[in-house]
């Protein structure tokens, strides 16, 4: 077989509806799951430093379990496993104008639960990066621990979180493809289905790859803009990552090092 240029070009610029819908789904799956993952990650990070032992144990156990098992396995357990055991069945949900199929709900739950464990570690490092003197200053003014965390530590930690959070979202855009294992019609599965009808495997998946890279590249620009704005606002020390380095690498990325360096 040869590379069919006209097929390729046609697919790239005039994709079938299933491709477009798959791509749209990939984006909103990633956005919603990331948002939920951030919230869950913050909660887990706070629970890990709670004075209540059960909360600490739960958070540590959760992170251990989720980070120690593959996302593919988690997806199958959450969607097919829980239904097979009669625990919970994801049914179609009608939200006014939107209809959310069960598999999409399961996909979002899987990604959010998974991402929460990773975000928890990022949040923890970010919170730890805020100088101890900040908490002491807040508490010396009569703030309670919660208030010090909320008004003094977290606003500073959140700025430190932004760069790694951007990397997480970039990853999330691509990781959605794993949900094809439970039959979620996102971009990858749309490509696969199209492939089984046409057998133009190479052309189809190169187009899918191009779609993914367009999405992640657009995100890189958005991330740069967000970080520049935060920097301009002042009071922050986010390292300035050139877009070139963001897209093509070249910086030595040591997780945590970036966080520590930010203070």
């Amino acid at each position, binding site marked *: 077989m040869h590379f069919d240029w006209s097929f390729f070009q046609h697919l790239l610029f005039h994709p079938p509806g299933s491709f477009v819908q798959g791509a749209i789904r990939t984006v909103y799956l990633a956005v919603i799951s990331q948002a939920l993952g951030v919230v869950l990650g913050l909660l887990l990070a706070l629970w890990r430093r709670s004075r209540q032992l059960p909360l600490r144990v739960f958070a540590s156990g959760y992170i251990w379990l989720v980070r120690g098992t593959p996302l593919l396995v988690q997806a199958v357990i959450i969607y097919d496993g829980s239904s097979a055991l009669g625990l919970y069945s994801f049914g179609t949900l009608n939200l006014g104008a939107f209809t959310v199929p069960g598999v999409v709900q399961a996909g979002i739950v899987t990604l959010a639960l998974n991402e929460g464990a990773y975000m928890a570690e990022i949040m923890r490092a970010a919170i730890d990066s805020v*100088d101890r003197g900040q908490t002491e200053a*807040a*508490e010396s*003014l*009569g703030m309670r621990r919660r208030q010090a965390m909320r*008004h*003094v530590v977290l606003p500073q930690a959140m700025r430190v979180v932004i760069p790694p959070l951007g990397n997480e979202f970039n990853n999330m855009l691509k990781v959605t493809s794993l949900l094809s294992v439970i039959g979620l019609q996102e971009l990858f599965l749309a490509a696969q289905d199209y492939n089984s009808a046409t057998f133009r495997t190479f052309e189809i998946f190169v187009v899918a790859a191009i779609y993914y890279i367009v999405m992640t590249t657009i995100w890189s620009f958005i991330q740069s803009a967000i970080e520049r704005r935060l920097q301009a606002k002042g*009071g922050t020390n986010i390292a300035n990552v050139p877009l070139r380095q963001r897209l093509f690498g070249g910086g030595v990325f040591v997780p945590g090092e970036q966080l520590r360096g930010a203070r």
Partner: protein
Amino acid sequence: MNRGDSTMDTTQDGAAPAAAGQLAVQGDGVHKWFGRMHVLDDVSFEVASGEVVVVIGPSGSGKTTLLRCMNHLERIDRGRLLVNGHLIGYRENAKGGLTEESEAEIARQRQEIGFVFQQFNLFPHLTAIENVALAPIRVRKVAKDQALAEAGQLLGRVGIADKRDAYPRQLSGGQQQRVAIARALAMKPRLMLFDEPTSALDPEMVGEVLEVMRELARDGMTMVVVSHEMGFARGVADRVIMMDEGRIIETGQPGQLLDEPAHERTQAFLSKVLH
């Protein structure tokens, strides 16, 4: 400066003259250990209301730890430490020992105690005026407009009204420390604690911070200052406490203690810092 006769007749063991009830701080046999290191060793002293006390001593002598115990940033291990008439951070339990107070109560006690840090510890994500107004708004539940108006006045009082919208990193060290003093004053404390407030400053900025503190003393604020600024001690303090190796080894009026120290370790220390 003249603060009246009530603070003149201090004794060698550190007991201050003021009548009970007027004491801002009262320590009685305070001990603290960091691991095996005995950082506070049977420390007893008093600070009367309206008094300015400067604590001096070599590094590692326990003076900063003692100050941090006064708002419960550090816990004491034994003895009694009363601030504003109450055990700070603890309550007496049925067995006569000390039980740590609830977090809410400790926070409430700290509202009455201003603390100024060596490293300023301003909140870098907030402007100067937001730094000052944050605690009144969040802790005292003062209306935002009123808190900001009062914060503006306080910034004027420490001489940096024009920097209200600057972020800490845009301010010099001296300006930052003055914002930090205004921030502590915003809670209207009855007592101000200063932990080496000028040690992190470039020499040319020491004067502006000391001037603000001098002003504060003149207005009658009760102050405990850990400092190496002997000029400030001489000019402003009612009493000077000399600490070494976790103990108070000498207490007296600045003129007496700084010029005619009774203890040889005080003499040795002063000869090092004054030259």
